[in-house]
């Protein structure tokens, strides 16, 4: 059971990271919001100051998608891939690669939509090419698991704000 609003991150197998998030809406609506570009553009990549540069999605097996955002400083962040499996309303499997990915190889994302009592849980499993790559991704503060950064970064920020 996932509470609406809480983002859960787990590692179900050696090469995987799984994100789970529940929404208080019926499944067809959530699926639409994930697959129609005009809706996707309204929520995905909502970083303050960032805007869409490219949002192209050809949601069918073999179709491609390409997402690019533009930041306030003019820098771009992009990602894309192709759809391997599309079961409308239920399940999407696609490859994914960030333009600036620090990990090797293309990852494969499986997105599953399931509804219970009017709430829809979206489970996204991302399969990386190896355990090492997965661990590298997990070790980043992105997943909240990294012991590296905080002391170092606290010190950096302290010295930066002091100077």
């Amino acid at each position, binding site marked *: 059971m996932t509470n609406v609003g809480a983002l859960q991150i787990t590692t179900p197998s050696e090469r995987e990271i799984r994100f789970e998030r529940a929404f208080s809406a019926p499944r067809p609506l959530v699926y639409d*919001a994930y697959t129609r570009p005009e809706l996707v553009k309204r929520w995905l990549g909502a970083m303050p100051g960032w805007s869409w540069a490219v949002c192209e999605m050809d949601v*069918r097996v073999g179709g491609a998608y390409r997402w690019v955002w533009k930041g306030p400083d003019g820098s771009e962040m992009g990602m894309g891939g192709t759809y391997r499996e599309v079961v409308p309303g239920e399940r999407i499997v696609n490859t994914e690669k960030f333009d600036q990915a620090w990990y090797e190889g293309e990852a494969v994302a499986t997105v599953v939509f399931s509804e219970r009592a009017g709430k829809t849980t979206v489970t996204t499993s991302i399969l990386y090419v190896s355990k090492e790559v997965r661990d590298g991704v997990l070790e980043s503060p992105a997943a909240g698991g990294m012991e590296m950064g905080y*002391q*170092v970064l606290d010190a*950096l920020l302290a010295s930066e704000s002091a100077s």
Partner: protein
Amino acid sequence: MNTHGHGQPPAARLDATFAALADPTRRAILARLARGEASVRELAEPFAMSQPAISKHLKVLERAGLISHGRDAQRRPRRLEAKPLAEANKWIERYRQFWELSFGRLDDLLEELKAEQSTQGRTRKSGATKQKGKGR
């Protein structure tokens, strides 16, 4: 397409940074250097490692631009270089924010879609059953 400058393309620079950060000893070295510069001997002390082994780690960190060494010929103190780490963190921070903020916005969008649907009455079947993906 990404023009951050500084010679190396940003993706390659981030690769080097993340590869250097992938090792716990190297992260511990960075944490130590965050408190102030230190010589190889001083850096080797807290680890059960020889100075050559530590030097190897220092070389990786230096190549990634994460540390540099001072002028003092004898001690050659190593110090932390803030910029690559800050850049790596900026990227990671974006990644995490990306999902949390996006999902928050999706909550709002879904509320809107639900409201729209209820005003459109019950004659219409919703969303995916209409095979919207094919049209557009």
